């Protein structure tokens, strides 16, 4: 009897681990981007080594590139010089090492964790790595996917393997159905609130139960994406008919007889009944509320209608509240906000934009609020335009951009000013994450859109 994770791990052990040495683990797919790859390419150059498997390596640009149409497609140069250098460096490295690159003006470009599922290169049972902690997103397909550092990017370039100790397993059992207005984002924020930001350290989470089975692939990706915010190495969901329906016909998914063979294999990728996990937690989805963070890590989160806890005497807690400009006992509802960001590898997919459009249709954002809506990929951008969402956003007064990581981490100049409150659908509310001194509140696309309309933190169920 073994877990989903055990099965995927065992199928990729080139050399099994021993007491003396970690396992040599084969990597099926290596995703790279402009920020964490240059130093790894430099190592290859220094050693005179090639990228061993360019056919299993895919490059795009997402972190530092601009989202303004003039800078991406016009003749306006990239505003941030260092970012422009980084983009050029990836173009040169990809050409030199024969790696396929979806460059700045490529119609298939987007956030690395958004485009690989769209292409169908993310598939059940694979091992997938990227120099980015949100690689856990791909676990939504039953892949073992995790973030690595740049030294390890070099290891995968040179050998298509990594040295890894086998992590422990952690079952996250979620039964019941989410109520209307409560989303996958609220679910994962509730999980992180329950197990804490280091509750998953050393573990791979497997999300299980009827609430997870009922989620779409976009929603499953939102859940697995934030596994790292609980400290977990990865998060996984067993593939099922929802997964297969998503993948069928994707440009790089298997076809014909290959599809049938793949399906037969993928159907075996589930935890055997009775298989043991090292840890477990249970949640009831049917009682969850829309969630919002109030502090400076994603574990500082509460149901939107509740008041901020009053942890007197906890210096770290007090420092976080001081940064946020909040006090214990205050209600979150009705607090003013300055910026709303909808996007990122957490909530920048089409269903997220559809949720925002549902709220924003026929409404305008509050005066003084700046709203940035950044699709996760160029493909999603086109789909949102075809569905009429983009027109709704523009009519509401939001800024509709080209795809990228954008204001999730503010590397490309899309930043929140010091002291401003940003209601963001991204994944991290760390100090300064969206700009020096910026104060980030994490929530779902529904909550973000509803709050943009009122200019105040708002329970989206008031507007649905």
């Amino acid at each position, binding site marked *: 009897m073994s877990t989903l994770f055990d099965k995927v791990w065992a199928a990729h052990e080139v050399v099994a681990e021993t007491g003396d040495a970690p396992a040599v683990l084969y990597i099926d797919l290596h995703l790279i981007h402009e920020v964490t790859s240059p130093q790894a390419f430099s190592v290859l150059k220094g050693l005179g080594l090639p990228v061993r498997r360019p056919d299993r390596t895919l490059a795009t640009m997402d972190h530092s590139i601009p989202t303004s149409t003039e800078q991406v497609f016009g003749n306006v140069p990239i505003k941030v010089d260092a970012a422009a250098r980084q983009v050029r460096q990836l173009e040169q490295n990809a050409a030199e090492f024969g790696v396929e690159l979806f460059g700045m003006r490529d119609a298939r470009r987007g956030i690395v964790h958004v485009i690989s599922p769209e292409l169908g290169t993310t598939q059940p049972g694979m091992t997938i790595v990227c120099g980015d902690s949100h690689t856990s997103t791909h676990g939504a397909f039953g892949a073992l996917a995790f973030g690595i550092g740049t030294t390890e990017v070099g290891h995968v370039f040179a*050998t298509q393997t990594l040295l890894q100790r086998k992590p422990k397993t952690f079952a996250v059992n979620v039964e019941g159905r989410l109520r209307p207005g409560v989303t996958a984002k609220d679910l994962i924020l509730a999980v992180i609130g329950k197990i804490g930001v280091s509750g998953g350290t050393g573990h791979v989470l497997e999300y299980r139960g009827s609430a997870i089975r009922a989620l779409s692939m976009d929603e499953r990706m939102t859940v697995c994406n934030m596994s790292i915010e609980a400290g977990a190495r990865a998060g996984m969901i067993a593939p099922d008919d929802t997964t297969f329906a998503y993948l069928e016909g994707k440009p790089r998914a298997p076809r014909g007889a290959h599809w049938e063979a793949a399906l037969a294999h993928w159907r075996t990728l589930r935890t055997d009944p009775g298989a043991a996990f090292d840890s477990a937690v249970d949640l009831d989805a049917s009682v969850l509320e829309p969630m919002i963070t109030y502090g400076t890590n994603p574990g500082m989160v509460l149901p939107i209608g509740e008041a901020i806890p009053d942890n007197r005497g906890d210096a770290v807690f007090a420092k976080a509240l001081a940064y946020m400009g909040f006090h214990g006992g205050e209600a979150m509802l009705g607090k003013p906000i300055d910026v709303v960001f909808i996007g990122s590898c957490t909530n920048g997919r089409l269903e997220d934009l559809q949720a925002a459009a549902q709220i924003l249709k026929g409404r305008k954002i509050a005066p003084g609020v700046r709203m940035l809506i950044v699709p996760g990929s160029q493909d999603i951008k086109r789909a949102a335009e075809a569905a009429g969402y983009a027109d709704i956003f523009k009519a509401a007064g939001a800024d509709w951009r080209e795809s990228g990581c954008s204001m999730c981490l503010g590397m490309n100049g899309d930043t929140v000013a010091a002291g401003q409150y940003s209601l963001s659908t991204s994944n991290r509310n760390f100090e300064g994450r969206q700009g020096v001194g910026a104060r980030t509140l994490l929530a779902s696309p529904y909550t973000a859109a509803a709050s943009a309309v009122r200019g105040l933190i708002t329970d989206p169920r008031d507007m649905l």
Partner: protein
Amino acid sequence: MEPVIRVRSKTVVIPSSNIDTDQIIPARFLTTTTKIGLGRQLFADWRYQSDGSPKPDFALNRPAAAGAQVLVAGRNFGCGSSREHAPWALLDFGFRAVISTEIADIFRGNSLKNGLLPITVDETISQWLQANPGAEVDIDVEARRLTLPTGVAVSFPLEAFARHCLLNGIDELGYLRSHLGDIERYEAARGIQAPK
């Protein structure tokens, strides 16, 4: 990588818990394409005023911090982004070890690959270290032992392979490349075509 055998140094203490890698080095500095010189940007938003002058209250800016090679921090150090720029910045600043009750997985792996020691201790030792900034500690990699100036010595977890690499200055890439034959056999067994 240079061998890392022993670190004997005074400590500097940043008592916050959940120090994420965005604090260790903010994202706006990740547009670099090298590993050089990141120590200047270590803890940039905690260390400098908006005009670039140092914040005198911040631990790293106090005169007592000069030359300290061991950073003591609250629990769950290095969480968040996988950026290896975090250990690069700590090393470039002069740190050789980080001590906490918990260290995040990716940061831990990145640190070991660069010769920065991620040391986890129990709450009692952590509290003592936090209460005694500047304490002279002795970290013995071979013995996996941390000794406090009081004479109290505790062992810390360090995986056998990581210890071997640290003590001998071994780069993991060389080890992985020694398994290229196994990798080719694995690919053949799975029906994966040989690389061109």
